């Protein structure tokens, strides 16, 4: 499950180093190249020490009988040491009285007395139990067994079974309580992550991303060593104001001492669209349908165009990574290059990514450690243009895509074109394009200094720069560009984030009392600016701004800034590795809040108890490990965009009139605006059974108050809303994670199951208010799930006349409410449907089977108990309203009313529509549950005997399939929807759970090879 091991502390002392290296330390290392020089020196240096003792040598192997490279072998209580070579061999001078100590990351430290032996071969046991592994938790690293918090860890390898460049997408179904969802199969789109339910109404619900110890930063999927998800307040609390939605910590790879590894991996595959239960009509089907309610002519059948198939293609996914890593005990490095290119299944849509990373850590001397992490990403994306997806769904099969000569038809001029949009996207795709390029650079410079044996100071500094350019071009020969004789849009964005985090840490033990104290001061400032240009009147096929003869709109641009400042203290105490207590306090300032309340204070506390270390547990052998955890604390949420507390008059271009600059009121002031406060209580239980089954169970309650809430105002107040700190939302849930080694012999079978339940309830809003957004389909109502659906309830089709029917609640003079049916949408009562877009249960299950070199893994993820609003049915399932759009084929079980007495699901089809039957109601609210075989991989590890002669360390070939099967009742192409979309503009809540003209997800079939040298 997890594979991050604590770096051994000082293994080499300065004195133990060869003279050439000792002098190397004093070299002023000013440049990166200098570090490399140093690094090479370390490599070439023979790790031998002097002395009068006799030589002792041997081979070190691990449990799998593979030679262990880079194991530190040293004489206990001395500084003399060597490392094993590529064959696992070592040789050291030792006295008979010495004890050799073998240490290696991930393996149990082993001691051997020398005595009279001259050859000592060692087999080191691995630290196999997850419980003893070390995880990165915020500002510190800890053994899992010592945590008092709810934390999930996913290793890079487990993460990368699915092929994608979007780390969020890779996380889907991998950790309990982490709900990843995406509304699109577009490779340039990203997924939303929601941890333990939504606890905010208008602020963001996305978790905070921390890369390599600092907030923000960049990363690429290929470089991820591990991901740690922090869920409860004791873990997330140190991130204070921004931790309310959980924290995702991404750790990138670092080389391991002694081993020089070169790894090449290559994956190539084919992507095809998935269509689920969804089918559009062909000409004959549409003709037969439309014949029932309007005049159709036989010439409709002259063509039968499948626009949906024409808009899509087979895409190619390529993922190639070359990495080199290694180093000495003093300096480690990891250098990688990755090329990822995924073609979307929609024509002209692709995501191409070049990623370079260099991570270097070196001990400048015995007290000072330097880390330099550099990452550059160049990303090129192309987007579909000309309403391609929309036309794929809605264009009529009656209209031809190609002329007789094979050129695409033009909907505007083709005689008798019937589709509403008069648009053949294939005609425009010959000329039009939309793309972007982005350059992201991230540099970390970290220094750790040991002031005394127990006191260390660290300064962590980061610069993140982003520059991107977006271009969209519509040629004069196309519909999109025709009216303006060609259009060109250019946008340049720049952003910089500067961060410094300075940490003082005290670590000491007093007998069985172990104490760690941490103090951190941190500041972050962000700047953004952009420039936008919009030209028109361009000659055909010349998409550069200099050829534009006029502008469409005035040039525009602006800047955006925010600052954060934070101080925190944490105390961590344990007694005998048995009882653990942790407490912390955070004070934070943000420029986003009102002048009266710009700062917030947060505190956290946690405790845990390892029962299996108590003597009374020692007789209960089935239970190999048992720990109880509890934590409580407060965190905040500040993700509402900038300047939301200020009263503002807009002076942008929307405010000018007749060519004169103007200003008009756009935002109501609230000087008291401050953080959202979230209190989280968590109780957890970790236990191991028979040393085969590891189980973690967490129950939590997360209650947010002082919600950053856009109180909707009547228009008569002059503003759409006012931001206030009002209301409270509670999430309660249960999370279970089980890892079971079912078979451990030659044939191995391991199962991991994670599942999570979350129940959400809005506890209160503004005094007297029952709904936050009364007009919305998810109004956020007191006593309800935040995502409960609220709309007219569809009451089926009237058998007598085929009219649509809705429920109407009528209140008589006595206040008695009776339910009746109406065919008037205006009279239909909007009411709670009893359904929500929040899933009741989410999770994933992975099974891994291996036998000798063969391995098979299957990964399913599932979402259960949510309702999805299938919005686009209003366009292609509307009972005759839009006869210039194509219609969907009714899935089995749906029937159309045609004559009195019919018991039908679909109203009578009427030209121009049947009584607003396609308006929002529970008619389009569908079961969103699904079970998806997200990935299956079959691999073969080539036997060492074959490949050793080729100087290859390891080689594996595999075939992998993503999104192979989905089980669902949903009538659209795919039931997955974005369950927690990001706010659309500052504080502008977007309801989740709506499926609209879905870009189908890709089914991928991939072949890959991994080779290590």
């Amino acid at each position, binding site marked *: 499950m997890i594979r991050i091991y604590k770096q051994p502390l000082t293994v080499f002392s300065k004195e133990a180093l060869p003279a050439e290296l000792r002098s190397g330390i004093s070299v002023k290392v000013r440049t990166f190249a200098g570090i490399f020089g140093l690094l090479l020196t370390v490599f070439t240096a023979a790790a031998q020490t002097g002395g009068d003792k006799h030589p002792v040598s041997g081979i070190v192997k691990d449990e799998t009988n593979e030679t262990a490279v880079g194991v530190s072998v040293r004489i206990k209580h001395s500084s003399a040491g060597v490392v094993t070579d590529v064959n696992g061999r070592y040789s050291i001078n030792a006295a008979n009285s010495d004890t050799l100590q073998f240490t290696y990351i991930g393996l149990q430290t082993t001691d051997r007395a020398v005595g009279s032996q001259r050859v000592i071969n060692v087999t080191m046991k691995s630290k196999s139990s997850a419980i003893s592994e070390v995880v990165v938790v915020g500002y510190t690293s800890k053994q899992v067994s010592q945590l008092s918090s709810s934390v999930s860890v996913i290793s890079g390898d487990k993460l990368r079974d699915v092929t994608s460049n979007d780390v969020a997408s890779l996380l889907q179904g991998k950790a309990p309580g982490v709900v990843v969802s995406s509304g699109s199969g577009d490779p340039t789109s990203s997924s939303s992550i929601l941890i333990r339910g939504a606890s905010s109404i208008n602020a963001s619900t996305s978790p905070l991303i921390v890369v390599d110890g600092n907030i923000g930063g960049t990363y690429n999927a290929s470089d991820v060593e591990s991901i740690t998800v922090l869920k409860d307040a004791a873990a997330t609390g140190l991130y204070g104001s921004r931790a309310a939605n959980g924290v995702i910590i991404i750790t990138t790879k670092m080389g391991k001492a002694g081993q020089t590894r070169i790894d090449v991996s290559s994956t190539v595959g084919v992507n095809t669209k998935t269509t689920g239960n969804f089918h559009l009509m062909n000409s004959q089907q549409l003709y037969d349908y439309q014949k029932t309610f309007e005049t159709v002519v036989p010439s409709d059948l002259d063509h039968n165009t499948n626009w949906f198939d024409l808009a899509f293609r087979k895409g190619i996914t390529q993922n190639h990574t070359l990495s080199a890593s290694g180093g000495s005990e003093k300096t480690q490095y990891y250098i990688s290059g990755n090329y990822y290119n995924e073609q979307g299944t929609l024509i002209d849509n692709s995501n191409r990514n070049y990623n370079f990373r260099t991570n270097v850590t070196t001990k400048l001397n015995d007290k000072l450690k330097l880390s330099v992490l550099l990452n550059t990403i160049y990303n090129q994306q192309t987007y579909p243009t000309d309403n391609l997806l929309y036309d794929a769904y809605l264009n009529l099969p009656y209209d031809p895509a190609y002329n007789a000569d094979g050129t695409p038809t*033009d909907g*505007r*001029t083709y005689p008798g074109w019937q589709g*509403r949009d*008069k*648009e053949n996207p294939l005609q425009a795709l010959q000329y039009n394009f939309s793309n972007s390029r982005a350059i992201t650079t991230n540099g970390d410079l970290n220094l750790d200094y040991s002031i005394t044996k127990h006191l260390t*100071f660290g*300064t962590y500094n980061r610069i993140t720069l982003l520059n991107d350019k977006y271009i969209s071009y519509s040629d*004069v*020969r*196309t*519909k999109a560009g*025709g*009216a*303006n*004789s060609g259009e060109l849009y250019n946008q340049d964005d720049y952003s910089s984030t500067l961060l*410094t985090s300075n940490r003082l840490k005290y670590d000491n033990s007093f007998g069985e009392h172990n104490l760690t104290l941490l103090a951190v*001061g*941190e500041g*972050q400032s962000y700047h953004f600016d952009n420039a936008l240009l919009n030209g028109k009147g361009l000659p055909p096929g010349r998409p550069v701004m200099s050829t534009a003869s006029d*502008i469409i*709109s005035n040039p525009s641009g*602006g800047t*955006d*800034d925010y600052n*954060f*400042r934070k101080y925190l203290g944490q105390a961590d105490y344990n007694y005998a590795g048995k009882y653990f207590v942790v407490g912390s306090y955070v004070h934070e300032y943000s*420029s986003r809040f009102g002048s009266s309340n710009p700062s917030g204070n947060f505190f956290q506390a946690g405790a845990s108890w390892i029962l299996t270390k108590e003597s009374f547990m020692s007789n209960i052998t089935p239970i190999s490990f048992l720990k109880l955890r509890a934590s409580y604390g407060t965190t905040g949420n500040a993700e509402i965009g900038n300047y939301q507390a*200020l009263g*503002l*008059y807009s*002076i942008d271009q929307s*405010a*000018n*009139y*007749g060519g004169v*600059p*103007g*200003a*008009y*009121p*756009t935002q*109501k002031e609230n000087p008291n605006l401050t953080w959202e406060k979230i209190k989280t209580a968590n109780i957890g239980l970790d236990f191991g059974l028979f040393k085969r089954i590891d189980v973690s169970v967490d129950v939590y309650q997360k209650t947010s108050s002082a919600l950053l809430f856009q109180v*909707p105002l*009547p*228009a*008569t*107040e*002059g*503003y759409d809303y006012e931001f206030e700190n009002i209301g409270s939302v509670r999430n309660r849930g249960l999370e279970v994670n089980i890892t079971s080694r079912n078979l451990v012999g030659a044939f191995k079978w391991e199962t991991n199951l994670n599942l999570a339940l979350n129940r959400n309830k809005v506890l209160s809003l503004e005094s007297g208010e029952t709904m936050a957004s*009364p*007009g919305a389909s998810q109004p956020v109502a007191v006593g309800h799930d935040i995502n409960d659906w609220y709309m007219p309830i569809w009451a089926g089709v009237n058998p007598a006349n085929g009219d649509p029917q809705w429920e109407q609640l009528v209140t008589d003079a006595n206040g008695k409410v009776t339910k009746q049916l109406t065919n008037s949408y*205006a009279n239909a009562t909007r009411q709670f449907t009893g359904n929500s877009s929040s899933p009741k249960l989410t999770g994933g299950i992975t099974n891994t089977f291996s036998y000798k070199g063969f391995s098979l893994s299957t990964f399913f993820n599932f979402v259960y108990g949510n309702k999805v609003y299938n919005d686009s049915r209003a366009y292609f399932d509307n009972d005759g309203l*839009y006869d210039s759009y194509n219609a969907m084929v009714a899935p089995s079980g749906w029937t159309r009313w045609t004559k009195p007495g019919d018991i039908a699901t679909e109203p009578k089809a*009427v*030209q*121009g*529509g049947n009584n*607003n039957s396609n*308006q929002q109601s529970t008619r389009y609210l569908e079961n969103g549950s699904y079970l998806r075989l997200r990935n299956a991989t079959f691999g073969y590890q080539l036997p060492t005997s074959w490949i050793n002669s080729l100087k290859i360390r390891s080689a594996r070939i595999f075939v992998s399939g993503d999104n192979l099967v989905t089980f669902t009742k949903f009538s659209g192409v795919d039931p997955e929807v974005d369950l927690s979309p990001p706010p659309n503009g500052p504080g502008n809540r977007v309801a989740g759970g709506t499926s609209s003209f879905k870009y189908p997800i890709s089914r991928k079939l991939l072949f890959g090879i991994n080779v290590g040298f």
Partner: protein
Amino acid sequence: MKNLRYIKLLITIGIVSVLFTACKKVEPSTAIDAKAALTNPADIYTATIGNYSELRDPDYTRSGHFLMEYPTDDIAQGQPSSDDLSRCYRYATQIPTGAHATAFWKKAYHLIFAANQIIGAIPDNATADLKLLKGENLYLRAMADFNLVRIFGRPYTQGSGSNPGIPLITDGNQSNGAPARSSVKDVYTSVIADLLKAADLMTIASTATPKSDIFASKEVAYALLSRVYLYMNDNANAIKYADLVINSGRYTLLQGSAYQGYFSAAPEDNAETIFCIRHTKTQDQGFSAIGSMYYSGLGPDGTSSLTTPGGQGNTGWGEVYASQTYVQDLDKYPADLRHSFIAPYTINGVLQLNKKLTPNTPMYYITKYSFQEGIVTLSSPVYLRLAEMYLNKAEANAKLGNSQLALDGVNVIRTRAGIPTLGLGDVGATGVLGAVLQERRMEFAFEGQRAYDLFRNNLPLVRNYPGTHSLNNVPTTNIMQTVLPTDPRVVFYIPQTEISINPKLTQNP
């Protein structure tokens, strides 16, 4: 130890940088502090400009156009559209969650709120420049109130204004709570008071040049007063304020080719326009423009003229046309210059039909919202123009029994259009008022007047031409639609979102 010095320095730098990097005050780049927005005359001027800019927001101009023009018999929608504008046209399918009514209501009240801020900030004894700005804002408020009440409140002439109107917000305070609807009468009273005061305040020295027709002025307030009084059946005042405009000498009726090109010239140069909502060349709305529904030019190859009608989808949607009955009336006089405001889409001389309905809808494109400054979808919708003053007078005189005076007004407009004048013997069965209303229809077609002209005079709106209104009927080949002035849907539903937040708002039946 040497290193320790570096470390001390590092710690110091670290702490200092934390303290200072994050302390800088941040401000938005495209907005200013509301507290400082109205502190001096220059800022009040800027904020007044900003209030005009709210008029050109599509939520006001475009949605307002759909609400005021689409219920008329000037136009025919040739095919159903997924946009809420279809419901504005068809009456029967209207719903309380209609997008355009919601958008217009919101934007109009935001404008009223913004105007109130300035009205409240300027005392009545301020300098002439400031009083002018206050007057302009009073006008803007009155115009927004008037449009709201004619969209959401029943005609004044039904029950003498006793029906529910709209909430009246005249206080610049930050919070007005949840206001109830004032009666139609109270709203009209407030509108008139605002306009009278506005006219009073917008006094400028005789030597100074008045603001152009894209801004409010004394005459603009008078012109709207004439219309408001006409709607109230206060005919004497309708005539009085029409005369004040006509006699001001600021405006002249455009003649001949200038008239034919009324909507394509730069708005400020137009001598007939009293008030229009200026859209500059860089504020073109493209396919989202009002004109996009009415017109589509030729030229997908980029070389053909955009001013020649073409198929749907070239430069606009081209789904809403001049109604067949309107064109038939226009065709009574082939020389009528107002033929310039429609552009039948023909191929080889054959009029094209939109075949989505049976019977088919002839594609008479409308050009009143196209071609300003040569841009196909650009227009600055005209709200008040001199011709209306003549026909307001004519209608008022007709109702006062001054038949010849009424026809005199009509004949000014007919003469300008290049068609024969009417004598008392020519008026026929509908009488002088009928002749006035018919001339108003011909002159102000597509300008959002027609439905109010009929309903305030207690006349039904009759559509007897192909259009999507036939889809209300069984069978759908029956093209007849009659909307009585008493029909509940003569007014739009109050937006559901507003009712949900403000329980004091009552819904229209």
